[in-house]
């Protein structure tokens, strides 16, 4: 009797349970525990009673929203232009857009700091938003480009033949058809922005703190239970965001290229 090939996934299955599922369960357990290990809601109550943390949380969501909207405004036209130019060139240009994404986020952020220093522009909220958009713009261009590129051009042509103005063609045909790409792009910008840390400190000379930093500080200071509760709150926000996005899982296995 030979081992079935499906058994080859067993080591990884065990690994996934131990190193992925279990840690997440531990966060949930710690979030509802006090130091002695008994059940409590105190960690969550503390969050709502600490104005600084609550404020940081709301501020982080605002920054994430602003970043997402700006990325969309800047990225959609770029994706549209790329999708409508000749294939070979657009493929190369797309790689050019994606390339900076592969440079360490900290390095990119410090490069942004360098740019602001070089141009003698002050660091602060403006630099933070610029840095965020700079870091996450490729995340929106790629998925929007992919949907626009796959779109059958005959829809737009049909609308044109039936007398629609270019603006109408765009708002009634192209834009609605590209919404899946827009949503996955929004997710890909919003989720990492909300969980970013360290970037804000560097871009604002420690003046502005985002929620990720709050989590890190609490964990660093040994407040593991409170830190876990904050992490759980962040997970909740991310869960809600991804539930909003209408994702089709038909191609779930092919996501390899879509990072």
């Amino acid at each position: 009797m030979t081992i079935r090939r499906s058994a080859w996934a067993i080591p990884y299955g065990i690994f996934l349970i131990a190193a992925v599922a279990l840690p997440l369960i531990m966060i949930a357990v710690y979030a509802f525990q006090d130091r002695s290990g008994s059940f409590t809601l105190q960690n969550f109550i503390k969050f709502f009673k600490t104005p600084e943390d609550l404020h940081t949380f709301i501020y982080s969501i605002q920054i994430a929203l602003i970043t997402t909207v700006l990325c969309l405004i800047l990225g959609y036209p770029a994706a549209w232009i790329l999708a409508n130019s000749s294939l070979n060139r657009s493929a190369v240009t797309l790689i050019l857009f994606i390339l900076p994404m592969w440079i360490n986020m900290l390095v990119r952020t410090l490069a942004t700091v360098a740019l602001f220093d070089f141009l003698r522009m002050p660091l602060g909220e403006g630099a933070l938003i610029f840095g965020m958009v700079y870091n996450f713009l490729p995340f929106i261009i790629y998925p929007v480009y992919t949907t626009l590129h796959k779109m059958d051009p005959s829809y737009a042509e049909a609308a044109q033949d039936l007398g629609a103005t270019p603006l109408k063609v765009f708002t009634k045909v192209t834009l609605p058809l590209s919404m899946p790409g827009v949503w996955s792009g929004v997710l890909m910008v919003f989720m990492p922005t909300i969980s970013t840390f360290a970037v804000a400190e560097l871009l604002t000379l420690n003046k502005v703190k985002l929620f990720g930093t709050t989590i890190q500080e609490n964990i660093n200071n040994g407040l593991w239970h409170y830190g876990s509760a904050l992490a759980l709150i962040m997970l909740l926000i991310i869960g809600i965001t991804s539930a909003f996005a209408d994702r089709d899982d038909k191609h779930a296995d092919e996501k390899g290229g879509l990072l």
Partner: protein
Amino acid sequence: MKKFLAQAYIWLLLIILYAPILIIAIFSFTEAKVLGNWTGFSVKLYTNLFSGGVSSSLGKAIINTLSIGVLAAAISTALGSLAAIGIFNMRGRARKAITLLNDVPMLNPDIITGVSLFILFVALGITQGYATVVLAHVSFCTPYVVLSVMPKLRQMNPNTYEAALDLGATPGQALRKVILPQIRPGVVSGFILAFTLSIDDFAVTLFTKGNYGLDNLSTYIYADARKGGLTPELRPLMTIIFLVVLALLLIINIRSMRNSKTKRIRI
């Protein structure tokens, strides 16, 4: 005119996107401590970077980054390739469950991955250091290996493995001689992807590195930047990293363009 405006927009975005990197690259060829001051052309920062050698803390961080990257990528590639073959031959609920769990590390923000592993290690009383960092990296790299091997399995003729068995090969032989050669491009891409993800990581490493002074490049840069001002030697280093990443990416993309008819771009 419209075409020109469109092209101009794309180029403007690209210039803005590359300006910071370009500035760092340009100022890596001058000695000035403060970035933005040009004190004449010099490769002193480059020679400093390499003459510092492995004894300097920056040198140690570079060595750590590379060794963790190779180790994590090797383990994830082995684990993930076998897992992909297993998952490919699974049906029903088991397959769904493992695919779902495989997606979690990719969807999880780094900070959540880092914090959750940190809490796990604390709860189990595991001392954190090199081994925990490698383990953590394996956990977020392996899903990408699985995803890059999967398409190759789908392209494969499923009968060849059975034919090998019928002709008397052991499952191990059939794996080495029949399956592996056909999925090799996916395995290699998976390894490169895992390596780049690992050397790029900051958040997960920060939470799992422990307090014994272990640093990879990202955590070193982070500590350095927080001390105020950036070590000038980081400028040539960043330039080199950019060129290395550029080369790796080109290899991956050329490979995937050559391997797939659909010309999908792997990022």
